[in-house]
């Protein structure tokens, strides 16, 4: 048991001593501690450009995926359309299509339009990849929410939009926010599709890491990875807090599905 858990966690933790070690390959016990790889990461224009580019992509993706995903979740759970099942299946599609296949396919479309390596190109690809996470989280929140609350608002004279803004939205807000965090990470951590739709002018941090691991293995990668891991864990912790904040309000009403 303990061995399996160590197998799971150790390779992730090993990058921390690696990033602080004075030698360029990891030794145990470490020869000495240094911040120089972090300094190298933060002062390298290439790494910084890739990091900022990825941050911009991830923020934009998070906004679009959360909007598109939430609206779709509303249509699937509360809507009155035929082919609901197909709509749901479509929104889950990117989870089952191998990322390399989607990467090649997106390259075929983006390349002739000269959209590889651009924010717009990445935004399209990463939004598609991130939407399932939002749909799953928001659908779950909507199914937990008693539809009678909405009916009560309508009965009190609210129209659909008012009922949504004053009743439904506040109740699903924590799930919506955690969906936004997950889609941010789904974009920022994404490497396979990014590998294909990056180019010399516009590289995501995933592509930059891939190249560095493949060609010049230095502890700068470990320093960059450590920064990314801690930033990701911080965000995930934040999302978990949001989801916890929602749980006392869980409604036990009949499901509308």
């Amino acid at each position, binding site marked *: 048991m303990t061995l399996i858990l160590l197998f799971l*966690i150790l390779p*992730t933790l090993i990058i921390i001593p690696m990033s602080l070690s004075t030698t360029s390959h990891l030794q145990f016990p470490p020869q000495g501690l240094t911040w120089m790889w972090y300094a190298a990461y933060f002062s390298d224009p290439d790494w910084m450009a890739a990091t900022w580019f990825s941050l911009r992509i991830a923020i934009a993706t998070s906004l679009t995926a959360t909007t598109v995903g939430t609206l779709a979740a509303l249509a699937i759970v509360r809507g*009155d359309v035929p082919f609901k099942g197909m709509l749901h299946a479509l929104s889950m599609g990117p989870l*089952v299509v*191998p990322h390399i*296949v989607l990467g*090649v396919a997106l390259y075929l479309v983006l390349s002739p339009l000269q959209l590889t390596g651009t924010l717009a190109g990445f935004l399209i690809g990463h939004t598609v990849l991130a939407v399932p996470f939002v749909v799953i989280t928001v659908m779950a929140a909507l199914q937990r929410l008693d539809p009678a609350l909405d009916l009560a608002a309508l009965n009190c004279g609210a129209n659909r939009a008012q009922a949504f803004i004053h009743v439904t939205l506040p109740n699903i807000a924590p799930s919506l926010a955690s969906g936004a965090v997950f889609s941010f990470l789904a974009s920022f951590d994404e*490497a396979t599709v990014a590998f294909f739709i990056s180019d010399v002018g516009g590289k995501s941090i995933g592509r930059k890491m891939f190249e560095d*691991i493949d060609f010049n*293995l230095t502890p700068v990668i470990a320093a960059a990875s450590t920064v990314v891991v801690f930033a990701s864990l911080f965000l995930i912790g934040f999302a978990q807090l949001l989801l916890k904040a929602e749980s006392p309000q869980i409604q036990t009403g009949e499901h509308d599905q």
Partner: protein
Amino acid sequence: MNIVASHRRQGPLAAIIRPRHASRYAPLTSWLLAFPLVATFATGFLYPLSKLVALSFANGAESYVRLLEDFLYVRVMTTTVATAAAVTVFCILLGYPVAFAMTRLRGKAALITAACVFIPLWTSVLIRSYAWIVLLQRNGLVNDFLQSAGLSDQPLKLLYTLGTVVMGMTHILLPFAILPIYATLRTLPPDFARAAANLGAGPFRTFFSITLPLSLPGLFAGAILCFVLALGFYITPALIGGPGSMLMATLIGQQTTVLLDWPFAAALSTVLLAVALLIVFLFRRALSLSKGFHSVH
């Protein structure tokens, strides 16, 4: 219940702007809500994939014939399936005990176990593959340890083999096996196991005749998830695999980045896509996708 019935207007237009049931949105509203998703997926998902499939037939079926006639490519396909199967088996064997423990542990131990499962899940695949390189390279930690312990005289070649790829992929996909199994185990009423114990079954008998059979749906879902994800894995085999461990995904990568044979790469991708979709379609009920993935969060 039918609140709006009294002031519902008649006619075809009313049918799309008025909901049939007060707790649902009207058809028109529903379509408008679904539209952004349909539009995004049409441009960023369905159109690119159809373009890919079309490109694979650019020279007729030539690419596919080449794929089936060349022994080398057939071997890549069988290696891919065998690797994915091996990874799936390892994930289930290692994942089941962890999932089982997660339902039994309380307090600090439960927290640590959950951290060990979730932290890797939300760490980039790149970073975890890089960690394996650091550990297994010629002057890496594992080789240092083996030599200082006197188990080996010279550094062993641990990287760039198929075995390493299987291990690295198992490491990355393990949480995807653990979570669906955990989700099923958690819903089993403890009364069943207690009843079995009451009837005189020992812990082993209870586990094998009660708990294990009842958790099979979760196990099955985890296995399918691992298998499908393993089939299309690119980053890990590309970084820690070698020429001897060419898989479908790395072959596609090589065709597109080195050989620039796009129609052939498209044919390979189409085969991979078809296999993944076929498996998900066949096992869609066992998978009940959204459930399995929701436990990921």
